[in-house]
């Protein structure tokens, strides 16, 4: 079952000397509000530096907003304890990045099984489920390969499999096809769309490609920290 996400007047700004962005951007998000219904596939469009990644970090429970609230299935992420946020990342929200999704020192199978092991699933069961998902993304034959032995498209498919292995309610994808050629990119997007809709997972796909956005049921546009109407 997909998550219901409610973003209410969220602002995020960095103090002087903060490490993010170029110094001119004082406020990455300047009051953003929207709702994602369970199972919805929404595209978040905007040029680089517009605050997409910041927003995804907030939704992913990696960061807290300066003000405003992010409510997922009724609970305010900012109010969760550290332990609950860890749990939230393990069970509810999964993320796929543009680059460096995989731990380079683990095989594809070990990468996919990792979220299950982190959640206390016995190793044999975790490996079995990971194997099945690798099969679903068409990489059963590569389960023993290390990331550096895979192509960019294959790496992203492993990342998608890992994102979905623990049956999350929310999938956050941050430019997942940004560094792929168009054919591999399309493959990865197809996978995300197909697997997510089959599982009813709510998807927020950050991208700057209209081509990618076309697969979404709805589009949000972010510019200079604000959603365009």
């Amino acid at each position: 079952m997909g998550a219901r996400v409610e973003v209410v007047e969220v602002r995020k700004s960095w103090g002087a000397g903060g490490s993010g962005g170029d110094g001119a951007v004082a406020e990455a998000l300047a009051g953003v509000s929207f709702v994602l219904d369970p199972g919805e596939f929404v595209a978040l469009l905007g040029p680089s530096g517009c605050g997409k990644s910041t927003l995804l970090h907030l939704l992913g429970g990696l960061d807290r907003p300066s003000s405003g609230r992010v409510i997922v299935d009724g609970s305010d992420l900012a109010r969760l304890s550290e332990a609950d946020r860890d749990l939230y990342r393990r069970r509810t929200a999964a993320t796929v990045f543009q680059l460096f999704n995989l731990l380079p020192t683990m095989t594809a199978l070990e990468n996919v099984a990792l979220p299950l092991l982190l959640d206390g699933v016995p190793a044999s069961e975790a490996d079995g489920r990971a194997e099945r998902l690798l099969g679903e993304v068409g990489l059963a034959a590569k389960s023993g390969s290390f990331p550096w032995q895979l192509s960019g498209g294959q790496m992203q498919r492993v990342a998608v499999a890992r994102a979905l292995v623990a049956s999350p309610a929310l999938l956050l994808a941050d430019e997942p096809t940004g560094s792929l050629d168009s054919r591999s990119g399309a493959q990865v997007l197809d996978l995300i769309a197909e697997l997510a809709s089959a599982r009813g997972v709510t998807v927020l796909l950050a991208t700057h490609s209209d081509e990618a956005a076309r697969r979404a049921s709805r589009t949000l546009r972010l510019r200079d920290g604000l959603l365009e109407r």
Partner: protein
Amino acid sequence: MSRTRPLLAPLLLRPFREDRGRFVLTVAGIAVGVATMAAILLANASVLSSFTATVDVVAGKAGLTVLADGPGIPEETLERLAWLRMKGVAIVPAVSVTVALAGGEGDVLELLGIDPVTDPSVRDYRFVAETADETSLEKLFGVFRAGAVLVPAPLAERLGLGPGAELGVLSGGAAHRLRVAGVLRMEGAARAAAGSVLFADLATAQEVLGREGFLDRIDLVLPAGLADADRTALEASVRDSLPPGVTVGRPERRTETVDRMVRSFRVNLTALGLVAFLVGTYFVYNTLSISVLRRRSDIGTVRALGASARSVFLVFLAEGAALGALGGALGVALGALLARVALAAVGGTATDFYLPQAAPVFTLAPSALATSFLAGLGTSILSALAPAVEAAQVEPASTLRHGSVEASRRRAVGPLALGGVAALALAALATRPGPVDGLPLFGFASVFLVIAGVSLLAPLAVVTVARLADGPAVRLLGVEARIARANLTGSLSRTAVAVAALSMGISMMVAVAFMVGSFRATVVDWVSQTLKADLFVAPESGRSQRALGRLPEEAIRLVEAVPGVASVDPFLSFEATRDGAPYTIGSGRFDLVAAHGDLPMADGSDTREVLARALARGEAVVSEPYSVKFGVKAGDTVTLPALDGPVALRVAGVYRDYSNDRGTVTIDRALFRRLFRMDGAGSLAVRLEPGVAPEEARRRLLSAAEGRFALRVQTNAVLREAALALFDRTFAVTWALEAVAIAVAVLGVFSTLLALVLERRREIALLRVLGASAARVARAVRLEAAALSSLGVVLGVAAGAAMGIVLVHVVNRQSFGWTIRTDVPWLFLAGALALVLLATLAAASRPARLAASTDPAAVLKEE
């Protein structure tokens, strides 16, 4: 270099300012290695140069020197050489005796007996406040008076002695009153024994020595301009005129003999010092690797701005050189300090063991300083090579794909392991050959090959253990075990090196514990078998551990007459040489030894039987070191330099002895007195009647000797304690070295983990994104530490046991000729290893905290 200079500030100096802790640690690591080496070299140079200086001063202008192989040069030899005067050769006899100052701190001095008439032709004497040379000679004649001595000015000042003052010296248990006849300037002969020297007439010195009619040396001053061939011919004619047991040669040969004596000691210490060096090298490698890692993006940026790969390479090489120079300079200073302190302790032991002379003077030998500094600099630059190459390979504005770099290294695991197996095989082979020129060079090669072999096997060990342990570890310890395993095998170039370094430190500790533990157990055993008498009596010798001089026969009779004394076994010996190598000829009462059986035989045969046979047939027994050194076994013969000509004796047996590594030939006292016309005793082993308390007997003995002989009387318990204390003091420095090696290796684990955490910030962030808690990330780092240190301990113990066996059965046997029974100090080892494991775990806490505090959002934003 001009293109390199602009890079120095951004790439090196500034980062160092930010990372002071690691910088200090690295410099300290190098400094320790350099200091260890410098201290050993300096202490040795000081001991040797003090001795050489004395030899040179005493030999003076002599072109040839006559010395005894046996107990001394009979005075008649002077008459046999009288013909030399016709050829314009000056013949200068001398006697030297080591004495202790009575009272005060018991300072040890050399007393040189000279002939005032002939001596100035070979040695220079300059008096304080003299006006013309004739007065100098006149003053020298003042020595003719019995009991008159000349004193070097610094000694006179220290003791507050002026002309006419009296001083007492002890030798052979007798106190001798001497009177100062003149004060010498600190030049010429006065510089012998660094000024701890007295000059007296021959007769006075012979009386103090208790050996009238014998000389220690005759210096021959050859006419100026003598051709080399003539000198050789003259030497041959002199040799023909000499009585048996007396030889002639160039004065330098004494130095060579001493050099041989201290050589084993020096080589053994140097080999241990090398370990400290290896560990320091590892430190430089590790620090520079971290530097390259931390500055990877900076390097990429300067490369993008146009810096060449060569400049980047040079910058990091320069960093290695700078660290080496700094650590080297610090190390040399530290080493000098260490040597100064150690000379009092270790050098003192060596001197007491090996050199018949007063304490050595600390000298700052430039060659020792330069050698250790350059060694530090050189190894630092060498260990900077790999990181510098790594830095030069950073692509301009690169984003790293570490995995593929590591993958290429992983392919090297197999070949490295093969090399390791080959090294171990060679190590086994190297235990077969015998010593080279008396040194166990192959034995040391074997030890270092074991270290090399185990280091080369470390990568395979890490990979294999990781593969085998993954399943069970994940089931048992959870997913952290898999994260830890992935990190360990994923950064093999770092983790395997850390394991190798730790195992190196541990193996040295285990090997030394093995060796010293076995040696100590053997010595304890031997002491309890041999030191069975109730009291041991020797001449009072002040500060010296050795007994100075010989107790006269009256002293022996006096001890025998003390009520409660059952028997007295006098031990009497002198130093002889065989083929230029020094050894001891000793004697005791074989009837007593045969009765008590307190001289364990090396092959386990019955002492009573062997000694009784030797006594009946007039045979000798030899110590194990003598047997090993000269290849003499029971049934062979040894030739002794008796006064009436060489005497060949059959060897009845070989006995165990750990008190003297030069080797000893021991014969019955009666035979000894006949062959060498020497009496008295260096020391006495006294057995008491049953029921007599040793302390009480000691008091009685001392009061009987009161006013006649100055004796050092020790009870059995005290002497045993002193023997073991001496043993422990000798090996104290070894332990200090090993402790350093271990500490540095543990620090190596710390810096490796730190490097791994720094290198894997992105991966740690990813783990956090996947929902791993900070605590679990930290736990993974601790598991890595535990895995690294357990692997290091397992490999280290295996290597250490192998090295210990080589040290005990090959190195020790070849350099000292001792058979040591294997005795492993299990308890000590278990404690030490537990301490290492705990220390590495404690060292992991900072990297673990660093990993836990990684903020995933911040790391992700960096991209």
